[in-house]
């Protein structure tokens, strides 16, 4: 009786509600591509848009500027204060939501029992959860933590590392070093479990984890490690998409996620928010100097852009829709590889890698390979091509922070309503403030000075 009474009172009120209890349930939580990958028009996902919004790839017209929500206006001109009362800081909340999802999975994995037959599913779930969490930590660190300076990383404050699903977990900011160490360690750990290739592009894989590790080490200015993982990535698969096969007149020339260069599909968040500045059909106009850098034979000029009476707009993304793709793909990894080679003086080798990539971006037979006389020249070429290739992919902000750390002196400038705004290299405003919604819960959590 006691037992049957228990089951009577334990019946799910809503069958559609799931109390996660099986590996397939956990896999389903991770496959929630709106929250874990920012898929489609959800406006969610683990990648803050504030970085790209403050970067130098675009501008908005004065009349459009005033239509932007206050948070985006603040970000666009690098104001001291960014967040406003009454508007949720989604750039913080949603990445942490995906971390919570991953933590629910990891917590459950620790307490559930599984049969031996489920080991491949178990491995995929475990590896994926670690990957997703590390990926979201990395993305948050690009915006809310200072740039990674190896000399200062132990002193600087990073972001809170939320590592369980417990409502009562103590939240505090870890050091920048601890954050990156955690990201790298979790990804290394994930490699033990992940399959080489994903079943669908929204799932993590060894392939994607190598790519992300290459990116993480590059951000940490650890070029040898970055090169190591770039190589591992390219060893798994290094196919490139020939842009000659694309119909540049189409609204969205790229095929859906089937693009063979994509290792991990993920979009920048914010599209669901109203008046989001980067949505191509609205406000963002491509920086004209940047647009001019594309050679007439460069197919990217036609595939990526559309001229309108307002200016040049970015057409749509690498994944074939109008959302901003910000996942991991082969072109980025090749550029990491090229840069790493050039960094350690292998100028020629680096340019070979770059030329191999660019050949697929130009009209057939029209590409003239780059040559460089020295390391600096090679690095300049690679950096400039990196910017052109990875436009609106959520990488530019991190790149500016890194380049400035290395002395590139990139000075950002905006003109709004006759007023000029400047962001000097290595300025404290390259690190966003922690939202007040978070700080209000703690007496001792430190704010970023700006």
């Amino acid at each position, binding site marked *: 009786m006691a037992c049957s009474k228990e089951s*009577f009172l334990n*019946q799910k*009120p809503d069958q*559609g509600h799931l109390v996660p209890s099986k590996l397939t349930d956990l896999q389903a939580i991770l*496959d929630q591509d709106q*929250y874990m990958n920012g898929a489609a028009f959800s406006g969610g996902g683990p990648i803050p848009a504030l970085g790209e919004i403050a970067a130098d790839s675009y501008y908005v017209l004065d009349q459009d500027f005033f239509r932007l929500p206050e948070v985006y206006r603040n970000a666009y001109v690098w104001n001291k204060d960014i967040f406003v009362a009454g508007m949720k800081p989604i750039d913080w*909340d949603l990445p942490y939501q995906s971390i919570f999802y991953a933590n629910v999975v990891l917590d459950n994995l620790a307490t559930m029992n599984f049969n031996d037959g489920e080991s491949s599913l178990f491995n995929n779930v475990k590896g994926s959860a670690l990957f997703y969490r590390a990926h979201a930590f990395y993305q948050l660190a690009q915006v809310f933590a200072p740039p990674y300076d190896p000399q200062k990383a132990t002193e600087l404050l990073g972001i809170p590392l939320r590592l369980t699903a417990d409502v009562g977990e103590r939240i505090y900011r870890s050091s920048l070093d601890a954050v990156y160490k955690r990201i790298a360690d979790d990804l290394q750990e994930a490699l033990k479990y992940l399959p080489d290739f994903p079943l*669908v592009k929204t799932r993590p894989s060894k392939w994607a984890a190598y790519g992300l590790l290459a990116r993480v080490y590059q951000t940490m200015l650890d070029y040898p490690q970055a090169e190591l993982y770039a190589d591992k990535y390219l060893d798994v698969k290094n196919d490139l998409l020939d842009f000659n096969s694309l119909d540049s007149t189409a609204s969205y020339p790229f095929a859906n996620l089937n693009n063979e260069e994509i290792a991990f599909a993920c979009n920048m968040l914010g599209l669901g928010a109203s008046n989001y500045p980067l949505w191509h059909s609205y406000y963002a106009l491509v920086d004209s100097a940047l647009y001019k850098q594309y050679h007439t034979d460069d197919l990217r000029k036609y595939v990526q852009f559309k001229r309108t009476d307002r200016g040049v707009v970015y057409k749509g993304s690498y994944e074939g829709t109008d959302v901003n793709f910000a996942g991991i793909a082969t072109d980025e990894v090749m550029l990491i590889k090229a840069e790493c080679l050039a960094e350690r003086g292998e100028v020629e080798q680096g340019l070979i890698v770059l030329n191999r990539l660019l050949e697929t971006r130009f009209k057939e037979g029209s590409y003239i390979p780059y040559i460089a006389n020295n390391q600096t020249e090679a690095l300049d070429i690679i950096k400039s091509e990196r910017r052109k290739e990875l436009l609106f992919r959520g990488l530019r902000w991190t790149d500016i922070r890194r380049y400035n750390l290395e002395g590139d002196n990139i000075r950002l400038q905006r003109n709004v309503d006759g007023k000029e705004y400047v962001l000097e290299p290595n300025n404290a405003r390259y690190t966003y403030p922690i939202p007040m919604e978070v700080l209000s819960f703690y007496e001792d959590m430190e704010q970023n000075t700006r």
Partner: protein
Amino acid sequence: MKAKLTKCIYYCICYIVISLGSDVRAQQKMDGRVIDAENGLPLAGVTIRSNSTAQITKSKADGSFVIIASVGDSLFFQHVGYEPLHTRYSQPDMQGAIIFRLIPSVNELESVEVYTGYQQLPAERATGSFGRIDRELIERSVSTDFLGRLENVVPGLQFNRGDAESTDPFLIRGRSTITADAQPLIVLDDFPYEGDLQNINPNHIESVTLLKDAAAASIWGARAANGVIVVRTKRGVGSRPRIEWTMNLGVQDRPDLSTVSTISSRDRVEWEQFLFENGHYASAMQGQTLVSRVNPIPEAVELMIADPSDLKGQLERLKEQDVRNDIKDYLYRTRTTQQYNLNVGGNTDKINYLFSVGYDNNLESLVGSSFQRISLRSSNTYKLTEGLQADVSMLFTRTLEKNGDNRGINTGGSVGLSPYARLVDNDGNSKPYFSDYRKGFIDTISQYGLLDWYNRPIDEISLNTNRSTVNDFLVNTGLTYKVWGGLEVVAKYQFHVANSLMENIHDRESYYARDLVNRFSQINRSTGTITYPVPMGGVADLSNQRSTGHQGRVQLNYQKEFDIGRLVTIAGYEIRTNIKKQQNNLYYGYDAENSLTNSRIDFITRFPQNTSTSTSQIPLSNVGVGKWTDNFLSYYSNFAFELLDRYTLSASVRKDQANLFGVESNMKGTPLWSAGASWLLNREQFFSAAFVNSLKLRATYGVNGNVSRVAAAYTRARLSANGETHSLPTAVIISPPNKNLRWERVKMLNLGVDFAVMNSRLNGSLEFYIKKAVDLLAETPTDPTLGFTNVYANVAEMQGRGWDFQINSYNINKAITWQTNLQYSYYSNTLTKYLMPVSTTGRTYVSSLTAIKPIEGKPLYTALSFPWAGLDPTDGAPRSYLNGEISTDYAAVYNTLSLDDLTYHGAVQPVHYGALRNSFGYKQFGLSFNISYKLGYFFRTSTVINSGLVNGWGGHGDYAKRWQRSGDEANTHVPTMLYPANSTRDNVYRYADIHIHRADNIRLEDVNFSYTLTNQKHKIPFDSMRLFSYISQLGAIWYANGAAVDPYFNNTPRSAMSIALGVNITF
């Protein structure tokens, strides 16, 4: 009023007190029998007292009694619901028994028997707060549903009308929860009714009892916090089969559209001209982008763009047209209702039976809408042996509700109808209306061979059908066994199954279907070939719901008489499970005639659309399956101890467990309980006020529970079969785990006095209560770093107090009778604790009056507004106050004005409400009318919104009152209408305090006129026949606001008077 045998089952306790005193000379055992003077039925449980011996006895089930008395003794008979009888005891007749006839009391107070769903109680002995609506009152009005008949007849039951209806349609003693269900629990006979309330046929109802306070309702435990409405169905009466035939036919004219304020056609055309001249339609005129070619613009503007030679004349013609004529003629019609019901029943020694057949057929005032209901009921009680009785009843209801695509006054999609539009041409043929796409775009693209893309609203009514068919089946069985003495065992079981099929069908000819096909049609402009991702044919959205419920109960009833009083107690165990399953399906290529659907559809690919530059998937919303389970286990007990015929002490306790919070929380659950006492003051020796027939004081206190389903103990996720980009199962986490959840609880103190004076010609009751709701589930904020921004927890509290008052007066009781019933209720409550940070920005609170606003110290539904500083005399701009100064800085007012800066008006639900009913009788004629009042609450009238005028195609009639020149500000508060519009300026104006008005109103609810013939008096071939007419929707007699807006019809069409004629025949 009439003794019912059923109550004997519970109260047939007969005992004889024989005094063996020494002085028994001249006294002997005497037999007598008590019957109802009107219907001759025996009366059980009548208290009989001999004046000379002071001995007391009670009558048995057959009305018989034995008493020691002497001839000539004076006997005193007392029984609930009957006039007390003092008479002399004369010599017995040949049969050996004397018949005493008790006359039913006209005083309703004493006749009341209340039923709680678990036991039947004489109201006289109850400690709690009960409200009772008897059959006469239920049959006084005419309606399809039963709820409507409870309105304005009992204090404490509040029906919200007008805008307030969207807060809570009806409540008992106010709302006492934030997130949980606020609707009172509806009990049909013995068990909660989980079906659609529309299924309950008012002709089946014998009485309705309201359980209002903790003591009355606490027996329902975790579902009692909102009060309980117990509906008792009819039983058979009379030893020979009795047939009752009722029918009524009603008509109601089309609604009055003039209460919807509308900009005149002339004003609208001129406004559009103004917009046109100011370049609002420049891009539409150039048509360089797809968007500008597609997005619709008003008809007059199309004319201005086309610029024909007789433009002026054509515009003049538009100015003369009024779309409301077409709306009234083609979208609305006279509403007709038909209701028929036949009851056949009887009551014999062995069986009580009743069969009912009911049929309703309503043609609603919106063309295309109708409602039909068939109800079949059989209710039987078998008296198997002296102590054993079996009950079996069955109720089958079938309802069919149909709606066409007819939005009445709201036709016209997101832009609305142009006031000068025509829905038909001069010959009455349906005309297209272009509110989705421009006609030019449709005509151009149609060259490629698309389907007809015109939208003709009148044709659409019948081309789209939204039909809901419900089959509801309820079976009740019960066994009652008298074990010995006062102990009785009752076992009851109810089975309920309801199947409903919702079909939303868009015919292949419907605009809905054609539009989908066309939007997705992929046109190859070089070859001219078209492919159709959305297949040709109709679209059917089918949803099937099945609800299955089992409820079982085992209960012990025990009664014990003592010299000094009586103990009445029940205890029971109950189990309830209700499972609801639902399936939703969407079919394309639907063809009803041949049962065809097309399933080869690509729902994944994002197709380019003909109407926009973005891509879209073929819609597939609302598809899926669902299952919901409600499991309850309950233990309950109830005691009443009646002392010396004048004191009653009562107590009840109940514990509920449910599958909502998980086992852990259930184990910890606190039991819900109540205690109460009543004192019949007039029975005290010292009480000497002769004109007082009855005076009762009572007090109760207790705790009831409420069920909220918003939160759960475990991590909850919801599965979907696919993701945005793949077809693998996905899960969304709905709530993080919270192991500390518990029932919401409402504590209530109730103090009451019931009185009857002047031979009971004046009687009534007055009650005062205090309600405190604690552990209310509300959201509480969390650090978003946790992964969620808030969780539900038992954190909020509310407190309120109220009065219920009722007085019945028999003013004249002669050839002409005149009776008056007055009811008054007051309830006001405030939120006393709320942990979620309350936004301090004022604008959060002004936009909706009917949304819950969690502000500590205020009612849940509160009217707040921006302060108004009048129009600027120089330019007619709206003004408000900022930091105490008059301001036109709209962004600052709108964004920074704080909660404290707002004007506070008061509650949005009535604080005072009630009704006054007068009934007159003369011979066979009867006349009664009911006047209701609702006071102390607020509503917001609508006005013209500048940006609405720019973006929409209609507008509010206040446009005509807009400020146009200096000096106008003295007569109007409507600002200048500008282009471009400033929506912040609009908001500062529309949410200003000038638009909030008192909603107080008094209205003549209804008039009932009847003519009753009985067999005895009028020689008709029936026992009785009642002809009646019932007139309702008579409108307001008075309302408080200066805006001349009836708060029941705030910018909505006003219902016309409804007249019903009916007949009720018994034979």
